[in-house]
């Protein structure tokens, strides 16, 4: 995919406008008042410290899953299984949270996070190897592993890791393993800063280092195609970078799950439901597969997601409307020919050149 350009931003905002119109029609058609919904959406997302903190909390795992998505896409692998990594990462981070009793605060948190990342990465090992050494589509294998992950963690919370005889849940994590919550009445926690740090780190590694270049050379410009011959002409083993990219992607999924358990929920239970792995794919695309773009898109998505909860609570409109609208927005953004078609207008070309020159 190309770098951010003026026409991409233009298409995104035009898409937002059209999507808002579709939302208006959809909400009216199901018998609700769109302006009321819009007001609640705004209040839930941005009004008051608590709502803003909650919006940032919603954005936390999304930043990580979006970066996980973009890293795998940019090495030329379509990792759809980040949600699965997130589940197993959360489960084992929670397990480490109550299992190790003698560690100090910093060490314990670090150990839990590392275990979550390790398990998340391990979850992606099979699809990566199957793809690179046997040509089995990683798309399908990672999707199927998502289903396996949900049932696996549910089984573990019910069986081996179960502590409570009444509810299927693991013991609560120890205080030494907690990521601190900063605001009262909000699950916003220090994990947010970890997520932002990781995204910025990813930006530098991908764009400014040799390692990042090696990773990208496998897939850039060829998102979702078979590993490009281009990188092997350069003498870069694209197979290796594909596997490494996939493992990093899984590790970040595991990290998202670990932060969710250590920072917000504090224990793992059967009904714990994640879909940030799938949302992350949408956000990654919305952010044009750039880490900084993903942060911005995640903050936006986190705010309207939190607003969506408020809408769900206040009106009859179900919160799924947010995901529906974002996927419609993706339809516009992913349509490359609309973006390309804009090039023929001289004004847009001029603006494009203006902004890309500034970046240099």
């Amino acid at each position, binding site marked *: 995919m190309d770098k951010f350009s003026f026409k991409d931003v233009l298409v995104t905002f035009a898409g937002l406008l059209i999507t808002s119109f579709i939302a208006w029609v959809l909400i009216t058609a199901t018998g609700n008042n769109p302006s009321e919904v819009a007001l609640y959406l705004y209040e839930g997302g941005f009004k008051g410290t608590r709502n803003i903190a909650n919006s940032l909390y919603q954005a936390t795992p999304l930043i990580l899953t979006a970066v996980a998505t973009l890293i795998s896409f940019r090495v030329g692998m379509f990792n759809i299984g980040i949600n699965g990594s997130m589940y197993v990462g959360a489960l084992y981070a929670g397990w480490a949270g109550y299992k190790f009793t003698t560690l100090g605060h910093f060490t314990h948190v670090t150990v839990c996070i590392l275990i979550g990342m390790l398990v998340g990465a391990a979850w992606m090992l099979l699809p990566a190897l199957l793809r690179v050494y046997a*040509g*089995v589509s990683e798309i*399908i294998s990672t999707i199927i592993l998502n289903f396996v992950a949900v049932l*696996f963690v549910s*089984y573990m919370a019910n069986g081996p890791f179960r502590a409570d005889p009444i509810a299927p849940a693991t013991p609560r994590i120890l205080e030494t393993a907690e990521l601190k919550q900063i605001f009262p009445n909000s699950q916003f926690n220090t994990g947010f800063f970890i997520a932002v740090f990781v995204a910025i780190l990813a930006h530098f590694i991908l764009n400014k280092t040799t390692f990042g270049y090696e990773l990208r050379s496998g897939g850039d410009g060829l998102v979702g195609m078979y590993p490009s011959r281009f990188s092997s002409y350069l003498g870069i083993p694209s197979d290796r970078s594909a596997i490494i990219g996939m493992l990093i992607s899984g590790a970040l999924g595991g990290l998202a799950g670990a932060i969710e358990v250590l920072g917000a929920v504090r224990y793992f239970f059967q009904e714990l439901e994640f879909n940030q792995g799938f949302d992350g794919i949408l956000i990654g695309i919305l952010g044009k597969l750039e880490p900084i773009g993903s942060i911005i898109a995640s903050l936006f998505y986190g705010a309207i997601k939190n607003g969506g909860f408020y809408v769900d609570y206040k009106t009859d409109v*179900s919160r799924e409307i947010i*995901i529906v609208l974002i996927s419609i927005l993706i339809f516009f953004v992913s*349509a*490359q*020919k609309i973006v390309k078609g804009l090039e023929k207008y001289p004004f847009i070309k001029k603006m494009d050149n203006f902004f890309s020159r500034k970046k240099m």
Partner: protein
Amino acid sequence: MEWIEIFDISIFRSLLRSTAPIAIVGMAAALCSAAGVLNIGLEGKMLNAAFAGVYASYTFESVWAGFTAGIIAGLLTAALFGLLSFTLGADEVLAGLAINIFALAGTTYLMRTIFGQAGFFSDPRIVGFEPISISFLQGTFLEPFLSDFTYSVYLMFLLAFVLHTVYYRTRLGTAIRATGENPEAAEDAGINTTRIKWLVTVFSGVLAGISGLFLSLENLTMFTEGMSAGKGYIGLVASSFGNNTPFGTFGASLFFGLGDAIGIRLQGVYELDSRLILMIPYALTVVVLILIGIRQRLRVRPVPISES
């Protein structure tokens, strides 16, 4: 232990019943893959059709209204996929994924907003498909094996034969396979590959729609959130395991159906955690993916003839 108890006529019947939706959507996937379209969006088409079917059947209290609505929903979703990937130049995988997420959230949204219910929607007004008994089989030894199924099972057999004929006996079939194997050569031979891809996508949308309808309107007449539960993806794996041929896909689907059927039976007989039993189809899929990988490693690669 009592393995005899597990393998009897009822497991054969349950095998065919669980194979049908996978085989039908698998053949849709095979058709697409044969034409070189990676159609991840089948899952979303199934889900949309399943919901539309239940909604129309509930509103008009007629199963054929549900059937029509389901097929239209499958068609429209397929048209959206085609529009995005062939006309507007979106990546096929991204378009398919966006459609799946759209369908999952969209059907959940509509169910919660229209019916005001979360989780599942069931109502006596929803009319489902009735089993049909085949009169000329009555009294013969085949009756317990082949009679009194609903439409899906018969459709599955019919489709396998029809698609096989189309594939290998008609110009259209050749055009489809040519489009998948070598698009440039197909274009040179005068085949409009974009039109073939559109055709295949639309037809696979109908098939996925039918498959989704059988999920929601056949044995249980209800709609559950995300009720396709990965069957669209399993269909893709089945088609890949069966080399994208109709009979191959059918055979692979039987394998998945067997896993399902054994799982259903195990729930009654053994004390096994239900989650592990639910995992059987997905675990089987992973095993099949590994088998596909091994097969592809072992396959003899054609050696290019060197120019002299």
